[in-house]
């Protein structure tokens, strides 16, 4: 399949590489030449602009930071699109923003799929992302061969926006999950109990989770290198809270968690992994 990939950051670069490995003809564009270099070395073709990148493709995939970036990319894609093009955005943005972009693309004759991912940089490199997609049955079917190069757990959740709703739900669980593990560790530690043993014991029971296992281990190692930067988790929780505000939805746990991430960004922990919430907890309890 002919695929254009726009947005070659921490996530986008390994994803585009996996598409090339999967045998697809990949075209890339990036503002900075050095972002494109590893892709070109692997056989990708460079386009002169985003509009040019979209020309003659079967599929265009974007992986950028925020809703305004997605809107900008997709406006360019609409200009370069041929009839029947499917545009896929794998960034994490608000469901309402995704629906709006989908409508705009539909007006230009382009099918849109919102397909955010979970699994982080490690999952992107390994081609093991969880992909949660929203859009028409037909558009999802067209994009599926590409998804299968990027992840193992690919679910078509529902209509346009459903992928982003799912991702927001994912961020509720992971945001509160990281905070829950950090609080449990701070609790054990302040009680003078060895945290590593607590983790080991909990892994065998109902508190088991991937977060307890992986993030918990990194908390023990005090390895706060991202991973998933806490400012990005804060951004995603803001999507959750704004959507809750618009819908009249009561989410007290998410609200409290969002404030912890807000405090992390404000206290200079934004560039560290979201497990650095442990440091914030420790300083709040005089353990720092």
């Amino acid at each position, binding site marked *: 399949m002919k695929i254009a990939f726009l947005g070659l950051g921490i996530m986008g670069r390994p994803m585009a590489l996996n598409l090339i490995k999967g045998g697809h003809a990949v075209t890339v564009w990036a503002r900075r030449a050095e972002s494109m270099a590893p892709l070109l070395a692997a056989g990708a073709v460079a386009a002169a602009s985003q509009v040019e990148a979209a020309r003659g493709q079967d599929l265009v995939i974007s992986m950028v930071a925020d809703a305004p970036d997605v809107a900008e990319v997709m406006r360019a894609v609409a200009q370069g699109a041929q009839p029947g093009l499917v545009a896929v955005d794998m960034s994490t943005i608000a469901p309402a923003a995704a629906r709006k972009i989908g409508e705009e693309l539909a007006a230009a004759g382009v099918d849109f799929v919102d397909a955010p991912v979970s699994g982080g940089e490690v999952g992107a490199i390994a081609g093991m992302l969880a992909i949660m997609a929203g859009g028409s049955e037909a558009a999802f079917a067209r994009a599926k061969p590409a998804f299968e190069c990027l992840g193992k757990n690919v679910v078509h959740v529902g209509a346009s926006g459903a992928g982003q709703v799912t991702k927001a739900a994912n961020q509720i669980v992971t945001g509160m999950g990281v905070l829950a593990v950090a609080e449990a560790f701070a609790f054990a530690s302040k009680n003078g109990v060895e945290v590593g043993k607590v983790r080991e014991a909990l892994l065998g029971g109902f508190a088991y989770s991937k977060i307890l296992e992986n993030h918990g281990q990194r908390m023990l190692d005090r390895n706060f290198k991202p991973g998933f930067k806490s400012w990005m988790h804060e951004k995603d929780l803001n999507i959750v809270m704004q959507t809750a505000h618009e819908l*009249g939805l*009561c989410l007290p746990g998410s609200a409290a968690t969002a404030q912890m991430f*807000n405090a992390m960004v404000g206290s200079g922990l934004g560039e560290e992994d979201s497990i650095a919430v442990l440091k914030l907890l420790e300083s709040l309890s005089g353990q720092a």
Partner: protein
Amino acid sequence: MRVGFIGLGVMGRPMALHLQKAGHELFVWARRPVSVAGLPATVCATPAELGRCCAVVFTVITSSADVEGVALGADGLIDGLAPGSVLVDCSTIAPDAARRIAGRLREKGIHMLDAPVSGGAQGAIDATLAIMAGGEAAVLERVRPLLECLGKRIVHIGPNGAGQVAKACNQMIMVAAIQAVAEAMHLAAAAGVEAGKVKAALAGGSAASRVLEVMGERMVSGDYAAGIEARLHHKDFGLVLEAARQSGVPVPLTAVVGQQLNSLMAQGWGRDDTASLRRVLQLKS
């Protein structure tokens, strides 16, 4: 003086009438003509036309986008107001929106004050509003005689946007206090104690407050007709939480109270008084 007024709702109408009664000539514009019916004022066709008639214009509108539209949009005030004239925006909007609007007007030599108010409909009727102003001090002094027709406490907080920051702080304290009173009344009733007696006793002590007095009474009597429509507090909490986010400041209590407001909205109580936070506590799954 010729004074313009846009936003003739529950707050704006009594405020405009105070200015008119103080001897000022009133010019008004409204999206819906019915809003200006019966006012002793000259009705203008557009905000721009109103701007051409007046040296000072007041706005009291609900959202940041609406204020931006009236001030900067097509046929907006910016097209009519002369250099040196003043826009006094008494709406509650985002601080960064206030700064943005002030900046655009400044390019044309037009002054702006963000001057949100606290005191509710009763405060507007009684001309006892608290007014918190952001903008140049000299501009505030020029319009102070007009503001004195509307309120007793007029404080210059700082440059543009500062008034809106103060208003955000006001809303945080006020709605959190409403939630605290609601929880206290709810606990008292659940424990089989008469909530009205608790409220009466508390009014004499350290927990005494205007919120306990006014909202507490509504909760005790079960009279949830607005006062202040809860949907406006809900809107303001969106602004407060966004401002906190932009500053990287944790506001844990405000965030949780915001969720209670979301629940209130889901019940369809947005046009009732914010005292309805007690009713949220009474919801059963």
